[in-house]
């Protein structure tokens, strides 16, 4: 039976944890608070160490409204800084990557070294009376932590440590990503007309996989697919047990050749890292995606593909081919997920749908919405408001 406008807008007769108010995806004030209270307080994937292999290499990225520099300093340590000059806040480095021993602000030529020290101030004598000097003008350093060469940053100096935050969330990947040094071979960005949480929901709920032609055939045709039980970790992370898939069921070649360390032929693994990162492994290739929210309805999705550092060209070619088969802008799955999140945003934008339902309870079997409920439970803690009732703050 269809519903009237009043019925359509009624609060779902569900526990608060089983649904979210659509305003969490569209409200500009909530978006701003997410940036400050959640994004700046959680650990964010910034890059992989292979993107800055040499001394003085750097990468820049935007995170939670700030431009960030991640560098391999002259002493070999990886450091991160806010990419803002101590003088007038100008962006110091504008290229996405490069190599430089000294960073000079293009506005007034203040310079910094890769350990964040201010090394020169233009015409310093003019500041002597005021006591401004290079010794007090270092860059704002940002905490960082690393796992499998993945560099994470945290803008909140008081946030839980890297080890406490992630705990055992990487355990399903230890034998795969921890065996040998990795290297990024694929990087692409995609601007989606969608809220960042909607994108990450496609990583966290497997119910949507009926959408994917390939997944329906190679994975969901196995009973074991549905029997896998989600594993939830503190701070909102999750994993799903490995499973074997049958690529031939979608007319594809089985992945028996060049498996990654620890992976058996045609095996699949996944780990979800709160709040916005997903690691997928398909036998031969690894994909990691993460997001940068631009506005409530605009999100930059960033995808990386990984192989083993220094592997022979023929092995690398297999990994690139297999990565691209599913992922990247021309993969089988990526455009389908992209289309899904954009058709959601189209209706959320003007309030056409007041609530999202995450009420599947299957004793943590893989179609259970438990990962998303855990995600929004954490979201509520950071935001000081529940996702099902974000504008009437009663936790």
């Amino acid at each position: 039976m269809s519903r009237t406008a009043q019925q359509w807008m009624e609060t779902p007769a569900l526990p608060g944890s089983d649904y979210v108010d659509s305003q969490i995806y569209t409200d500009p004030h909530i978006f701003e608070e997410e940036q400050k209270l959640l994004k700046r307080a959680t650990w964010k994937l910034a890059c992989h160490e292979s993107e800055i292999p040499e001394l003085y290499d750097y990468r820049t990225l935007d995170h939670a409204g700030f431009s960030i520099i991640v560098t391999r300093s002259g002493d070999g340590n990886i450091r991160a800084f806010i990419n803002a000059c101590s003088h007038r806040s100008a962006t110091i480095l504008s290229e996405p990557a490069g190599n430089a021993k000294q960073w000079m602000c293009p506005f007034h030529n203040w310079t910094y070294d890769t350990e964040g020290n201010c090394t020169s101030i233009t015409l310093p004598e003019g500041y002597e009376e005021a006591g401004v000097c290079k010794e007090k003008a270092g860059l704002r350093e940002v905490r960082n932590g690393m796992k499998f060469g993945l560099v994470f940053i945290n803008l909140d100096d008081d946030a839980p440590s890297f080890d406490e935050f992630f705990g055992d969330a990487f355990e399903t990947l230890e034998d795969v990503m921890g065996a040998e040094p990795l290297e990024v071979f694929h990087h692409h960005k995609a601007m989606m007309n969608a809220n960042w949480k909607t994108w990450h929901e496609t990583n966290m709920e497997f119910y949507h996989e009926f959408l994917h032609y390939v997944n329906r055939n190679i994975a969901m045709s196995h009973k074991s697919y549905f029997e896998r039980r989600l594993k939830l970790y503190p701070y909102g992370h999750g994993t799903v047990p490995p499973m074997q898939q049958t690529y031939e069921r979608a007319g594809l070649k089985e992945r028996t050749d060049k498996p990654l360390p620890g992976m058996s032929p045609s095996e699949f693994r996944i780990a979800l890292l709160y709040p916005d990162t997903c690691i997928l492994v398909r036998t031969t290739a690894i994909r990691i995606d993460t997001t940068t929210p631009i506005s409530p309805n605009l999100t930059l999705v960033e995808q990386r593909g990984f192989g083993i550092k220094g592997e022979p060209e023929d092995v690398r070619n297999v990994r690139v081919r297999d990565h691209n088969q599913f992922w990247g802008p021309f993969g089988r799955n990526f455009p389908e997920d992209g289309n899904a999140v954009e058709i959601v945003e189209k209706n959320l934008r003007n309030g056409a749908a007041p609530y999202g339902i995450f009420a599947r309870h299957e004793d943590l079997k893989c179609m259970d919405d438990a990962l998303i409920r855990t995600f929004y439970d954490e979201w509520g803690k950071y935001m000081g408001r529940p996702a099902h009732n974000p504008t009437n703050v009663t936790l």
Partner: protein
Amino acid sequence: MSVSDDDIRNMLHETFLCLDAEDYDAYLELCGPEFRYRITAYSPELRKDQVWLDHDREGMTELFGNIQFHVRLPGKFFRHGHVYRIERDGNGSAKALTSMVLHYTEPEGDSRVFALCRYHDDIDLSTGTPLLASREVRLETRQLGTGSHIPM
């Protein structure tokens, strides 16, 4: 029988039209038996070249055959290509450079630029009919939104 530059240009234009029409069988008829198709892009983030798609003729046939099963962009692509250069090597083959703009039109009729790229084509002239031996789509545009199941 000699192959003129116009013959080559016409064949290349036909490949554009075949993809616009999503007539993949006709597209493959314009390709040689050893056809290789690649999409590549330079990543300033990695400071390296990347390969985003790499298929032989069999792989392209499989890819084309599966498009119908995917949830795909509902609109249409239009290719606007200009063949800048045709160079013969004197051994029955030629190279062509094409500048390409790919437009996407939503079902409601709104059009936008989807991607800028260049086609670097190798053309087999040995049979008297120009056949596409390989195509490298070199992307200038790297942010492609939701991406596409349809090659460029």
